[in-house]
């Protein structure tokens, strides 16, 4: 009797361990159903969720037979989703398509052979003609394109409170020619009694401001050269930018390290600051505060970056080993189609990557952005993953964050050089 009991206990113990291994068997069933597409995003709330819903509605119209499975992971501005995605890719259980920032942020996935080359998809769909040539160039890695952008944002926009500037006798409609001219205006604004003329937020918004200064000084070509090693990080242009960036920090609110971008933009909306450099998602914050473009606030390309479009984009990929590859391509077709881009971007407040979109469909600010996107030189944003691989941009982010506390210019340049050496090998 006693022996039997211990035998049963033993079997139970072994069984407990085995159940841990058996749960992975269910996936084959899913794969057998061809008419499904599982799309992984971090669009789970706000305007992003509205945009995704609009896009899936369009997808249902174009491909009514395919069931859309929303695998959105919320939280942490995508960091939770990226961690979840990394473990799925590691376990060879990829979704059919996943969201990623277009550009260099994909390079880790490319190096690990986790995403497929979509160049032939581009030619089949005529996307190589529909997207601006500059954008195609930014998306191409070693002659191949790995993702399809769904929307474009601009990162070199300065948001201006017209009232505050007028009070100080500055013409808000006329953008200063370069950063030095802007610094003069900032001083004027400060002397007129505006305590913090420039609104700034947490680490990545500092990085975005710094990147704007770099573009202003180095120009499109010089700035793009930073990412392939043709522009040196200890060159005079970078050093000058660091110096100007340091002066800009002097005009910023002292509590910047703790503010998210919307809190920083709010300072401009409230009229406590004159300027804020932010991506064009800030447009939503101004319209929500029921301000009108052109009267209460206005925008220009950050001084010195006129004629350059600092882009970032969300995009969709085709992972290696996607269980429903044909359906995934259908999804990418909808994402890149004129109707799909219109549905998504109208809801999210961004602009389409296609140049054949009709500006009349979009609100005032987006029309100006679409015009520049068509005409300007496109460069990749650092703060939003388009310019540099993740590891490199987190190194820069930390160096810029450190500079925010000690404002030691030499150590920032040293850290930037070290980060570039590490990344470019």
């Amino acid at each position, binding site marked *: 009797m006693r022996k039997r009991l*211990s035998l049963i206990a033993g079997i139970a113990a072994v069984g407990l361990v085995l159940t841990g291994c058996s749960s992975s068997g269910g996936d084959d069933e899913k794969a057998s159903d061809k008419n499904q597409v599982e799309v992984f995003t971090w669009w789970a709330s706000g305007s992003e969720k509205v945009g995704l819903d609009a896009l899936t509605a369009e997808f249902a119209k174009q491909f009514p037979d395919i069931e859309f499975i929303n695998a959105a992971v919320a939280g942490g501005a995508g960091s939770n989703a990226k961690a979840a995605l990394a473990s799925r890719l590691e376990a060879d259980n990829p979704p059919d398509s996943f969201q990623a920032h277009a550009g260099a942020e994909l390079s880790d996935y490319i190096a690990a052979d986790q995403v497929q080359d979509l160049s032939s998809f581009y030619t089949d769909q005529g996307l190589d003609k529909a997207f601006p040539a500059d954008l195609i160039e930014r998306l191409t890695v070693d002659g191949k394109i790995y993702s399809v952008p769904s929307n474009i944002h601009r990162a070199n926009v300065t948001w201006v409170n017209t009232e505050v500037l007028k009070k100080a006798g500055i013409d808000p409609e006329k953008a200063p020619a370069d950063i030095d001219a802007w610094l003069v205006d900032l001083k004027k604004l400060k002397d007129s009694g505006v305590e913090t003329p420039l609104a700034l937020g947490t680490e990545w918004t500092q990085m975005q401001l710094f990147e704007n200064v770099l573009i202003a000084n180095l120009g499109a070509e010089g700035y793009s050269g930073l990412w392939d090693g043709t522009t040196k990080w200890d060159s005079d242009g970078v050093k000058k930018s660091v110096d100007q960036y340091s002066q800009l920090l002097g005009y910023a609110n002292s509590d910047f390290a703790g503010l998210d971008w919307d809190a920083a933009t709010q300072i401009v909306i409230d009229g406590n600051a004159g300027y804020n450099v932010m991506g064009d998602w800030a447009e939503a914050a101004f319209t929500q505060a029921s301000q009108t473009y052109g009267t209460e606030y206005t925008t220009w390309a950050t001084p010195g970056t006129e004629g350059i479009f600092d882009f970032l984009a969300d995009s969709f990929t085709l992972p290696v080993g996607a269980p429903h590859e044909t359906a995934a391509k259908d999804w990418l077709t909808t994402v890149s189609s004129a109707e799909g881009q219109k549905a998504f971007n109208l809801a999210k407040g961004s602009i389409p990557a296609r140049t054949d979109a009709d500006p009349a469909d979009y609100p005032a600010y987006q029309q100006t952005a679409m015009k520049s996107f068509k005409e300007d030189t496109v460069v990749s944003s650092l703060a939003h993953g388009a310019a540099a691989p993740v590891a490199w941009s987190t190194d820069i982010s930390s160096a810029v964050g450190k500079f925010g506390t000690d404002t030691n210019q030499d150590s920032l340049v040293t850290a930037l050089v070290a980060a570039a050496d590490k990344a470019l090998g």
Partner: protein
Amino acid sequence: MRKGIKNWGPPLLLIAPTIIILGIFVYGLIAANIQVSTTNRHSLTPATEFVGIDNYIQLLTEDRFLHSLLNLAVFTVVFIAGTMIFGFIWAWMLDKGVNAEGIFRSVYLFPMAISFVASGVVWRWLLNSAEGDRASGLNRIFESMGLGALQNSWWNEPVWGMAAIAMPAIWQLSGYIMALFLAGFRGIPEELREAARMDGASEWKLYRYVVFPQLSPVALSALIIVSHMSLKVFDLIMSITKSIYQTEVPATYMWVTLTSNDYAKSATIATILLVLASVLIIPYLIYTNRSEKETR
């Protein structure tokens, strides 16, 4: 005494699930983690070679990591000192006897019921570093009480900023330390105090020479508990400041490297954290083991 499998078999079977699960999910994963930390797996691509302790050398000579260790040290010292001092004083006051002791006990213990994330969100606002017109949180309170001079930038201070982050942690954990000390006070037999009083000891001497010495095991446990909590601090910092350079500690740095796919580096940081925690906990385990054997 029966010998053989009949004797040790059934107990072993009963604890077998625990041993197997701990073996896989704790010790197995620690081993896997250490293994990753000795490779060059700095991206999503699989590791290609064994690099020994290179990752450790690189990390320990890196300014950024040393800065995170310094932050952790400041946080730990302030956090431990704060919880121990407040916890002890509250326990002492309650032990001296007050009306409505139960109410005070609950009031002091309540903050512990809140998670670090939830209190972090509130303290993020309380510790807002804006001053003057745009001040909010504590700075606003100081301002409206006419104590404007007390306004400061809290965690925005370069070196001592971490002390401000320790404030919410002290607020949450002091009550727990108080409960530990109070249990210690109550564990001392009344006879000892009476005997001391009979011998003419003053109240202060009674505490100094009779009560406090008996509290040292409690104090040691409390110290170990709060110090290992402080080594792990992550959620509080993430919810107050997010992961930024200024308030970076090894645990948040580990998260940053993990999310930027530098697996080897993040495994290295994890291992160093484990070693730091072991340095504290292993001597404590040895000590309690020994003293338990003695009392048996």
